[in-house]
């Protein structure tokens, strides 16, 4: 009897267990709030916004480092490390930390998706590749040799420790990418349409931007490989570069969540400590842009005084104590800041590459190699465009034709001193796109900047030539990190990147 009960119970138990123990588990483990793939038209604008920058890296990379090293801005606060050539590990790596896991990851994902879907002859594929070059060129210009061919592919290829490519190879590949991409583009509006928030699907403008970017990269090479620089510049010019301010590559930011906003604007909302550098203000003397770029901080009534006569620049390299001995006095409210009427908005456009820059590069190509016709004409067109495009910030920022003409009359093309003149204009035209200002200054040495020599600075009183890699690469990607240090040189602010040798 007992045995029967025993056996019966065990049998029942066994039966109960026959029911699969993981039934429904596969469905349960699919996230009900996520999709397993989405269309490129959703991904593209997201990546463009990542590339345009968010507050984190824009604050640290664009403003704290580049803008102060370039003496566009100055700051007495100790944490504005670039002002005095200090290394702050987290600030120095901020641009890398933000770009790779966001812009790089998603641009590689789009590229992979289009390749998987065999859409490699579509204009979208070309757009993705041009966008990809834009993202990487800023990275390599800032850090030197960087992970490129293996980067952003942890999921696609399972590579979690990408090797660093030599900048020389990266440049060669980026130029090739631009050439191939431009060739893929046709005319009219691509299918992606307004999801292309840079050019609204306009293939013609993409072509111009691809070539303009090629021109930018070509000129970067003048110090290390002038032959290649000339050849690529020729190719870019022949392919057709930007022709007016309507062709500018920019993102129109808007109010809303962080990613939608202009990151410089977000920084100015949070941190109003930066002032216009004496150096920059000096270069804006008798330049109609001074009233657009510089203004005093709002007074108690909210009035923003942008009368050029009232502006005062802050020298770089001062701190809260040493400013007391400076003739300008220690009241920071009396020093100019970026004009809050136009430049501090979170809905401001973020300019990636302007027509003005392109004209100035054409002028330089003319001076160097006799390309693209009369350099003086390009110089004038560049200056004109640089003044005219400011109205994209705000109508109030518009500079009228008379002012432009007066400026050009007072500052005619100076063939004897052309490179300095052109690149000083480039310096003025790229205000707030500090990554570009910094790269172009390292390439040309113009304008002539006098470095500061603050006690304890880490560059022996010279302007840094690059930013330092994230310190966690030493641990997380050690083999490749060690290899790049061996080939590129010590991981210092003073080490020059390949094209800057």
């Amino acid at each position, binding site marked *: 009897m007992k045995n029967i009960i025993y056996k019966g119970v065990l049998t029942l138990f066994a039966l109960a267990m026959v029911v699969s123990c993981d039934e429904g588990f596969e469905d349960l483990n699919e996230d009900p709030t996520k999709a397993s793939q989405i269309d490129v038209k959703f991904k593209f604008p*997201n*990546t463009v916004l990542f590339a345009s920058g968010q507050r984190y890296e824009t604050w640290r990379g664009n403003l704290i480092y580049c803008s102060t090293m370039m003496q566009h801005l100055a700051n007495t606060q100790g944490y504005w490390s670039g002002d005095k050539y200090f290394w702050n590990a987290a600030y120095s790596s901020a641009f890398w930390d933000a770009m790779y*896991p966001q812009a790089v990851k998603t641009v590689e994902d789009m590229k992979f998706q289009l390749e998987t879907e065999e859409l490699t002859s579509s204009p979208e594929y070309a757009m993705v590749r041009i966008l990809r070059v834009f993202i990487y060129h800023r990275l390599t210009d800032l850090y030197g040799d960087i992970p490129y061919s293996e980067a952003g592919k942890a999921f696609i290829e399972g590579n*979690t420790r990408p090797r660093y490519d030599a900048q020389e190879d990266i440049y060669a590949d980026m130029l090739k990418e631009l050439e191939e991409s431009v060739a893929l583009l046709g005319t009219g509006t691509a299918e992606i349409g307004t999801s292309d928030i840079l050019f609204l699907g306009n293939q013609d403008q993409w072509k111009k931007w691809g070539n303009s970017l090629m021109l930018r990269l070509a000129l970067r090479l003048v110090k290390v490989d002038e032959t290649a620089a000339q050849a690529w510049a020729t190719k870019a010019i022949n392919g057709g570069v930007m022709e007016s301010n309507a062709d500018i590559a920019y993102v*129109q930011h808007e109010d809303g969540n962080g990613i939608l906003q202009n990151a410089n604007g977000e920084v100015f909302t949070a941190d109003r400590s930066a002032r216009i550098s004496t150096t920059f203000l000096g270069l804006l003397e008798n330049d109609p842009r001074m009233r657009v770029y510089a203004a005093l901080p709002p007074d108690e009534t909210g009035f923003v005084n942008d009368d050029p006569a009232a502006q005062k620049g802050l020298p770089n390299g001062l701190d809260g104590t040493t400013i007391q001995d400076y003739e300008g006095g220690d009241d920071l409210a009396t020093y100019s800041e970026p004009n809050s009427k136009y430049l501090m908005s979170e809905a401001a456009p973020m300019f990636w590459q302007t027509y003005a820059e392109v004209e100035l590069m054409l002028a330089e190509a003319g001076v160097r190699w006799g390309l693209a016709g009369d350099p003086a004409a390009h110089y004038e067109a560049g200056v004109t465009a640089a003044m005219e495009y400011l109205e994209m910030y705000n109508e109030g920022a518009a500079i009228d034709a008379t002012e432009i003409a007066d400026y050009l009359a007072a500052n005619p093309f100076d063939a004897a001193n052309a490179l300095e003149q052109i690149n000083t204009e480039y310096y003025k035209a790229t205000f707030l796109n500090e990554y570009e200002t910094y790269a172009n200054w390292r390439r040309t040495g113009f304008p002539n900047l006098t470095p500061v020599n603050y006690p304890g600075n880490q560059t022996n009183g010279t302007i840094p030539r690059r930013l330092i890699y994230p310190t966690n690469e030493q641990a997380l990607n050690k083999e490749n990190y060690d290899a790049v240090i061996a080939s590129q040189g010590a991981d210092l602010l003073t080490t020059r990147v390949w094209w800057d040798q």
Partner: protein
Amino acid sequence: MNQMTKYLLIALACLGIQGAVAQTITGTVSDEAGMPLPGVNVVEKGTSNGTSTDFDGNYAINVSSDNAVLVFSALGFKTTERSVSGASLNVTLAEDAELLGEVVVTALGIKKETKALGYSLTEVGGEKLSEVKQVNAINALQGQVAGVNVTGAATGPSGTSKVVIRGVSSLSGTSQPLYIVDGIPINNQNLGSASRWGGSDYGDGISSINADDIESVSVLKGGAAGALYGSRASNGVIVITTKSGKKQQGLGVELSSSVQLESVNTDLYEFQNQYGQGLNGVAPTTQQEALDAGMQSWGSRLGSVSTAAQFDGVNRPYVDTGDNVSRYYRTANTLINTVAISKAGEGYNLRFSATDLNNNDITPNSGLNRKSFSLNGGAVLADKLTLDVAGKFVVEKVNNRPRSSDSPGNGNFSVVLSPSNINVLDYQPGIAEDGTEFRISSNTFQQNPYWTAYRFSNESRKNRFIGSSTLRYQVTDWLYLMGRAGIDNYTARITSVEPFGTAYKPLGGMQEQTFNVSTVDADFIIGIEKDITENFSNTTILGANSNSLKNEFIQLVGNEFVIPSLEDIANVANRQYSYSDSRVKRNGLYFSTEFAYKNYLYLTVTGRNDWFSTLSKAGKSAPNNYFYPSANASFVFSDAFELPSWFNFGKVRAGYSDVGGGANDPYQLSLNYAINDTYNGRGTGVSIGSISNSGVPNENLEPFSKKEYEVGLDMRFLNNRLGLDLAYYSNKTTNDIVGINTSQASGYNSAFINIGELTNKGVEVLLTGKPVVSENFSWDINYNMTYNENEVVKTDPDGNPIFPGDAAYGVNSQAGYLEGYPAATLYGTTFVRDEDGNIQYDSDGTPTVGDNDVIGNGIAPWTMGITNTFRYKNVNLSFLIDAKFGGEIFSGTSAFANFYGASKNTLVGRENGLPVSGVDADGNAFSTTIPAENVNIYYQRLYSIAEANVQDADFIKFRQISLGYQFPSAMLEKTFIKNASISLIGRNLFFLMRKTENIDPESAYNNTVANGIERFGLPSTRSYGLSLNVKF
């Protein structure tokens, strides 16, 4: 009355004489809760005539005489003798306090004799936890149990408790144990912690359990003890049983009250008070200079100028104003009141309790209120069928949890670092005329502490229900069926506001968060208990378990208030919302079989197979399930052999187990995408979306395993007055699922793979002694000690360290896992030294910042505690001293105090310059003197060198004391009060030894993954109070 009794007894005696013939006595034996007791031995005294009760507690025995005396005995109960009087005799057995330790609650709530256990298990009585009640009751385990490392944190009473048993056993997750309450696992999820960029600790799940409701806590330390929980036992298991109703005299009402006052332990703070606010040796002369100087104490010697400008433009004497910390923080109070009613009778027992816990914390305008209701009941529903139910309802509200780590919103930062010529009371009320923050520094991130206390707000509410019911059907006297189902459901709401006018966020912002978390757990068990032969018995259970977790999270984030004064989530310019729904299920089948030979040799074998939804995916080839076996044996040699009389008890034990786990988080196997926002620029109106994973998904994940063996020896000597319990264990986790850090250049910050390997080896010693035992005076000592050696063996394919990320960040340092080192090794920037140990300096005399390297060990390997209990008549004195050795702590306070010139070491060189000597970058001898006015550059460099800010975390703490008085029963006899006691209590009163400067060695800012990293949490406190307990 006495007269009556006498007559009655005479009458009974007469009856007895009259019927002096053999007869059958029947009756029921039950426990104090009124539940029938099966298996009680009933023996006629002086004879071998005996029987035992059946599963309903009934017995029948033929006795030889009417004067017979029956002896009732059962394990864990006082042996009771009763004279026969009539044909029926019902008996209630009292639990034997002396012997209670012999029976403990083991896995699945099964009670077992300790001598049968082949593993280490420590049971702690509820009274230990309610003696000096903690807001988070589990903190009271600190220093009490060998092998259990409870770490305090600087996140206040509402914070998370970190309990690690036998060392960190996983490279991911928190290594916190599984908590089982009344048979069902409860959710111990942390709802948020401070990280590198600041934030608050939103507490854990175990804090919902009320100290006054806890009957006992069983700590199943090793795998062998917890093996029946299979995949969930890898970090140890803590089984909590709550109180149930008992038969008692009187109404069965118990009241207990405790009031504790808490104040900052100011002994810890020793900042410099010789130099005031300023820069480069100069005191501020204008408001702007004062604001620019902010927290910097690099001014001139105090008193060297008569007054200096301060943050508000007022010139005040440039002198030391005294202790800002004690001025800013108030005396906290915690009031805990519990009323409990319990009753038991024929076939039922019931207990209801209600507790109100109210805490006003040391930070102004902060505190916690928790109301707990508990109802436990048991009933015999029908013949052979019993039901037990337990339900708890907890309503918790926390106001303004402290912020820690980074300075934004963290008042602790500003209070501690304010220069000594500033009186923080002058910061009051913290609000400028225009309603914005009254700035105390040009650095927008350094906040006015009164603004953070009164204008920041952070309110969290949690409503939680935990219920379980167990139905048991005794099929025959050797076979039972049991079903148990339970639910743990809570909704937590968090509203946090960064107000309009905050310096670093002028337009403000807020967040609304809702967590809906529900755990459902069900077991079905078949139990067989059989004597196979006279000397040989077997107990077997077969079981099936299903556990599911659903965790919904809804978050609304709003930034930039439109109407400044209206703090509403719709009143914002920018909105973001997010929703996540995490669903996890795990099914298991298990068995356990125990063989006992002659009650001195025991062998138990268990096995469990678990299936994981988190490792399931269509087409996946790697397994989604794992079989976890265990075996343990115990040999009571004192029962097997004749030993000297002073050797009372001896047992050796050994156990082996394989436990482990699957992935905790769902959806890790595939790449997912989400739509994030809408972009409307240039009239487009397009949706934007991207990859949601920040870690690389891996569809080949499989369960991990943790194998452990342990041996132990348990001995008692000299009439049980001296006891020694030793345990040695060694465990190894392999194939651990690790979110390895990846180079960010790969596009992802982490990747999940089965790779982690780590080991723990340790010794646990428990020494108990009763030096004095007498009627009026007794002295008990309990000493426990643990040494755990933890080693991370494998982290990732390249042997790279793993860092938990922002949650474990110090300043230029973090806690992480490095091969060859213990878990939570501190890693950060170092000094550069030449071969002879000389420090390398830059040309300006500041030490060169070296590469990241190991700079300390965040978890102390040595932990111990000693409790002394004295009783003299009705007075009780008990105190606990606990200690930890061998650990270090990275002090963020030290880093910033160096930077701002607040710490005493920064006084060196301020008058005559600071001479340094060492080597230069080329290795040549180097010496220079940093001028006095620039001496700050040296100390500010120390801020960047993490090694300079690591401190030895060894300590001996006078943890707890209680002086109690039990009112004599004679005094209460005439009243309705049955029992009353009162005690004076104190906790964390002082250190007997400490090596840290300006911080408590137990002041981690994040208690989930980080260990040994301090960054401006709440200051350490000491508390003292009064506790009262009355029964009537």
